[in-house]
């Protein structure tokens, strides 16, 4: 049982974030599927496409209703568990979160309301416009959250102020165009598109396997296969881009993902499989492919990728430089006019966070021993084995989905997919894969950021509030109970309506109209 406030607060945030992200990707992806279906209806006038928009829109609505506000529990935690974090970075972090709130409320929610209640009130084209705006709103909400998250990974456009003891924004454009945030945004929304496509593909396959609503399911399958194939290709290409930006801004994360303990001559080899041994700080065994890591990680044949041992040695130096920054900060806080201390602080400010890592071992950073500095340098490495395996599982599932969507797309071009039970069964079995990959992606991104909340700036240990363990267990139980109920209700409603199929629209055009 965890009895430490830092680990419990981390666990609580991880649990709420992972639960929340079970709802999000389906919303992000389904909304574009609805745009495509409705656009085809507007262009061709074929009734089945409107029925598709309405039926899949109904499942989208269930997911939206259950998922909306599930992110708010994370914002609750900023004021309780993460109050120091909130003070330290509130100046920067607050802006994108506030914009997201406004965007979600005005654009996304309004358009979603109009989508559901506007069918008989708006013209076809007006309704399609609403659906497009709903899709844009949903994706823009994700953009602002990922700008905030991107800044936690690569804190650009901000500077520490000793007067306010917080980071202050110096360049809003740098925050917006942070390469990490951009890479995260495109990779995450593509992951959502894959999720939406898989959802439609799997359920349509189930109808086809049962021989129900064949024309409806065939058309849905076709759209899902094409959209899914394009999306899975982009999630892979953009995942490669994410890996590249990680290598630029968070070298230690990349080295941990790849279980690269030592710097190799360029271009480095890629560990396809390995057994990382954290105690020996080596791999017990590995299966490597020459050159590949160097090529994808640096896009060159001559640039080296530093290994964990080398980065640790560099971090040791940064910790020593950070000790000077902490001492200078203490002096400046005592006397704001101490120009010598101000000079030292200015010179070592970029390593202040590294000096603060020593707070785990000593109250007075100035007196840290070489052993403490070594231990703090060791702390700068995220746990390698979970990173290595989470990443490989995410990528492996991505590749499996590439094959599935590739096969489905090819079969849908040939037009004979409903007579391929193996493909249909496979599509049904693959339903959980996008959700699993998304969750693992977040594990890679967030677990790999440890020991920082703001990479290189603020250690996680110093971000948490001093709450009681009992209150944390109480809120954790409350959150878990809340989310579990929501998930169960979501599953029940989804299964009920998916089983009923388009017959639940009550149009008289589909099977199973009397099933309810």
């Amino acid at each position: 049982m965890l009895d430490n406030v830092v680990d419990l607060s981390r666990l609580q945030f991880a649990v709420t974030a992972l639960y929340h992200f079970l709802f999000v990707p389906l919303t992000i992806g389904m909304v574009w599927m609805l745009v495509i279906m409705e656009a085809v209806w507007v262009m061709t006038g074929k009734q089945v496409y409107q029925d598709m928009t309405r039926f899949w829109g109904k499942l989208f609505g269930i997911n939206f209703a259950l998922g909306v506000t599930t992110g708010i529990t994370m914002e609750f935690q900023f004021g309780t568990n993460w109050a120091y974090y909130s003070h330290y970075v509130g100046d920067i972090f607050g802006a994108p979160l506030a914009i997201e709130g406004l965007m979600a409320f005005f654009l996304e929610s309004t358009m979603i309301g109009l989508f559901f209640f506007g069918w008989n009130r708006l013209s076809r084209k007006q309704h399609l416009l609403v659906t497009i705006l709903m899709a844009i709103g949903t994706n823009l909400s994700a953009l602002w959250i990922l700008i905030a998250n991107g800044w936690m990974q690569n804190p650009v456009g901000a500077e520490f102020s000793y007067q306010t003891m917080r980071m202050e924004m110096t360049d809003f454009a740098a925050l917006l165009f942070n390469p990490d945030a951009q890479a995260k945004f495109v990779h995450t929304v593509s992951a959502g598109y894959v999720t939406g496509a898989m959802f439609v593909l799997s359920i349509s396959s189930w109808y086809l396997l049962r021989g129900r609503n064949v024309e409806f399911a065939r058309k849905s399958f076709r759209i899902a296969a094409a959209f899914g194939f394009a999306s899975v290709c982009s999630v892979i290409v953009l995942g490669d881009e994410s890996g590249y930006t990680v290598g630029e801004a968070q070298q230690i994360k990349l080295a941990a993902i790849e279980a690269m303990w030592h710097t190799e001559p360029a271009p480095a080899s890629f560990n396809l499989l390995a057994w990382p041994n954290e105690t020996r700080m080596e791999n017990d065994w590995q299966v490597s492919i020459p050159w590949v890591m160097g090529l994808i990680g640096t896009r060159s044949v001559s640039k080296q990728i530093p290994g964990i041992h080398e980065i640790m040695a560099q971090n040791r130096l940064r910790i020593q430089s950070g000790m000077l920054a902490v001492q200078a900060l203490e002096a400046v806080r005592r006397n704001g006019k101490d120009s010598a201390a101000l000079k030292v602080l200015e010179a070592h400010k970029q390593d202040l966070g590294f000096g603060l890592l020593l707070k785990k071992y000593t109250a007075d950073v100035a007196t840290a021993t070489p052993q403490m500095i070594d231990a703090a340098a060791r702390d700068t490495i995220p746990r390698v084995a979970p990173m290595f395996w989470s990443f490989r599982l995410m990528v492996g599932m991505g590749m499996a989905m590439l094959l599935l969507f590739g096969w489905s797309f090819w079969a849908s071009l040939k037009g004979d997919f409903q007579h391929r039970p193996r493909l249909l069964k496979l599509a049904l079995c693959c339903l959980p894969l996008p959700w699993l990959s998304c969750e693992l992606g977040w594990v890679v991104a967030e677990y790999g950021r440890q020991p920082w909340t703001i990479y290189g700036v603020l250690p996680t240990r110093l971000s948490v509030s001093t709450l009681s363990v009992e209150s944390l267990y109480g809120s954790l139980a409350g959150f878990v109970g809340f989310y579990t109920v929501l998930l169960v209700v979501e599953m029940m409603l989804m299964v009920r309506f998916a089983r009923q199929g388009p017959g639940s629209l009550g149009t008289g055009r589909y099977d199973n109209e009397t099933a309810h």
Partner: protein
Amino acid sequence: MKKTSSKLSRELAWIIGIKLVLLLIIWKAFIAPYRVAVDADSVAGKVLNPAQSSQQLEKNNAR
């Protein structure tokens, strides 16, 4: 068409309502009483050497 759609809409409206109530309960029970106010001094107290901070306090008091 209207019957099933409006039944689902009613159910979803209930779900959102119950969800807001649950969130309010969680807020009242676990969040509002535990909100922590943090300012520059409390951050300094946490991240800097406490001995230095108390020296600072003593100096301030002496002034």
